[in-house]
Structures are given as C-alpha cells and as structure tokens.
C-alpha cells in the first residue's frame, strides 16, 4: 500500500509486517535513516525520521531522544529488553520490530512511499 511521505506509523507497520513494542498512536515519521552506528545517526539522521537498526541496546533510545527521532524500527526480529522499551515509553519514542532484514524493510518502506 502507498502512503504519504509524512506517514502515519500504522501505515508503516502494514508495509513491513511490523509490530509495535510501545504505544504508537498518531506518531508521524518523515523519511528514514538506516545505520547501526550511533554516532553516525547523531551526525546524519534528521529529526522526525524513522530509524531502522539492528542495535537493541538502550543507547538507541538515548540517541533517538537526542536527535528527536520519533520512532525506531528493529529489524531481523530483534527485540530489546523490557527496560529499554520502558525508557522509550518515557521518552515518547515509538519502538517497532519487523521480521524482515534491514534491506528488505528498506525496500518495502521506499516502495510504500517513505522517501522525500
């Protein structure tokens, strides 16, 4: 399915068979950044983007919060610990998990229109 660039997260979930780990109501994302290097995300991701990564450490939440990234997508079915999820809830960051690889997820997100 297609959705607008400023996509409702529910549409993103459908496109990549993702399940939310946190409450996701009305979160919007604009574009996506993919990296497993935290400093790289700090340097190059834009605020408001979806961030896809295989990293599930709590520092992902810190980096997302620092960079005003509203949603993080964990690929390859990797799920973070409950305390990481709790921290994300506290920071108001949506966490998602998809069984797809980062490459597959990226392809489907692009196809679905999540690009500028």
């Amino acid at each position, binding site marked *: 399915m297609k959705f607008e660039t400023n996509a409702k997260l529910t549409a993103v979930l459908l496109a990549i068979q993702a399940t939310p780990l946190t409450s996701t109501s009305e979160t919007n994302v604009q574009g996506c950044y993919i990296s497993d290097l*935290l400093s790289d995300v700090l340097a190059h991701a834009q605020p408001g983007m979806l961030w896809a990564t295989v990293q599930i*450490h709590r520092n992902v939440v810190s980096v997302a919060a620092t960079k005003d990234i509203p949603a993080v997508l964990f690929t390859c079915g990797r799920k973070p610990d409950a305390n990481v999820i709790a921290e994300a809830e506290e920071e108001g960051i949506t966490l998602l998990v998809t069984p797809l690889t980062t490459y597959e997820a990226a392809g489907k997100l692009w196809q679905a229109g999540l690009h500028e």
Partner: protein
Amino acid sequence: MVSAGDARKITIAQVLVYELRVRDAMSKPPITALPSDSLREIQKLMKRHKISGVPIQLGTKLLGIVTIEDIITALDQGHIDDLAEKRMAQGVITIRDHFSLVRAVAEFERHGFGRFPVVDSADRLVGVLTRGDITNCLMHQLEKRAEEAIAFEAAALASRAGDDLARRIVIRAPVRTGDYDSAGKVSQRLRQVLRERGIDPDVRRRAAIVAYEAETNIIIHSLGGEVTVAVDSDKVVIDATDVGPGIEDVNQAMQEGWSTAGRLPRELGFGAGMGLPNMKKCSDVFEIKSGNGQTTLVHSEVFLRKAASTP
C-alpha cells in the same frame, strides 16, 4: 509618644486619612445657585445632581447655603417658591481645601453639618465636601493602593521567574569505564533543561549530541572521568575530563571514521570514529587537549538562542 509597636498597628486607612487633603475628596466643581433662584429650582438642581446641599453664590462671593432640610421645611410650610436669599442659611462655616481629611472629620463632628463648602486660600469656593465624599475617597485610595501592591507582587514574582531562567544550572556526573548502560544520563538532563527554557530545537540537539558523545567517549576509551555541563543564559558549556590514558594523536582522532574502540563497544554501535568530529561540528567553540599517557580535556560551547516560535 508612639512606640514602634503602636506605629505598626496604624492601618493604611489611618495613614490615608492623614495623607489625603480635603481637595482630594471634595466634589468639584461645586454646584451652586444664585440668591435669586427659587427653592423649587434649587430642589430640581439637587435632584438632577443627586446632591443634598447647594451653596448660594453671587460672583465669587459665598452668601449662604440651601440644604435638603431647608427644602423639606419649605415644602412642609409652603414656601418652596421663595427665593434662596430669603431662606438660605447665612454665615456659612467653610472648610479649607488644604485641610487633612482627619481635620475635616473633626470639623464634621464639631459642627454636626452634613456638608461643608470648600474654599481655597483666596476664599474662592472650589467644592463641596460631605462625609460620603470622604468615605468614597478613602475607598478609592485603598483600592488604588491594593492594586499597586498586587502589581508590585506580580512584578516581583515575574522578576524572580526571570532570575530562575537566567540562573546557571550545572549538571555534573562521574562517568565510569565500560558503563554503557549509563551513557546519555547527562545528555538527557541537559535536553530537559533546554526544553524547559524554550531553546531552539536545533541548538538543543547540538548541545545534547556534544554531551552524549562526551559521555560515551569516556565510557569507551578512558579509565574513567567526569562530564560537567553548565547551562548559562547565553550558552551551554560542556567540559569532559578523564584520568587517561590519553589520545596519542589528537589530529588523527579528529578524523571521521578513525576509531580505537574495542569489540564490545563496536557491537553496541559505538566506535564509528565519529564522536570527536561530531562534537566539533555541533559546537560553536571546541577545544581538545590530550597526549599519550595524559588526561584528556574536551571543552565545548554551544551558543543558545530561543526558538523563534516560543511565545
């Protein structure tokens, strides 16, 4: 003699009674009538202006006064069409406009009149004073003082709030080697403070990135250290210090992609070789001092500006 204790018991109303003058309270200009006006005309004048006494004046000379009591008597005894000059009270007792209200109150007590014509120092009639005028004046002045006091309180509160915003906030935290779980604690607090102060989001992110990278650098590379963040009214100052082992080649460390991070931090997503370059890029002032076997000192300043849309 009044002791300090007694003085404190004097109410603001008492102060006002001494402070205020007859000219502050009197009704002015005076509503007057001519000696050739009939009592009936004067009665209409009283009704129209809602007053109970009318000085009778010819030119600048005060001849007498006709009061509501005179009108009632005239109606009762059927001489309401008589002229004022025939029925007015003569030899009227006046009060000076520069008298204090407390003296005016004493004059009312002494004479038992309902009103006084008020004359200035040249004996010109300038107004009429009733007991009601005194009460109204005091109430009005009390209200004014109360409003001033409230405004003063509000201004003092606002100024204290302003001081809070301008106050320097210092966040200082020790950072331990390999403590990846604590990374970002200082940065998180800094983000909160900057958000509360309505700082521009871009500036907030840059300052938070510098603090975060400073924390992770100490965790990954050092033997332990400390990060201090000071939020001033115009800038965030971030100082990171550690106890070694120092950076052998600072120029090399400042290049993107160059990293000495070990396997574990790399697996966690650290060690991209971008920490120091990121810090420099996000800073308005950036200094680093280190050397093999030395402590490393990183100093960064990020200049603050308010978000344009902040109300």
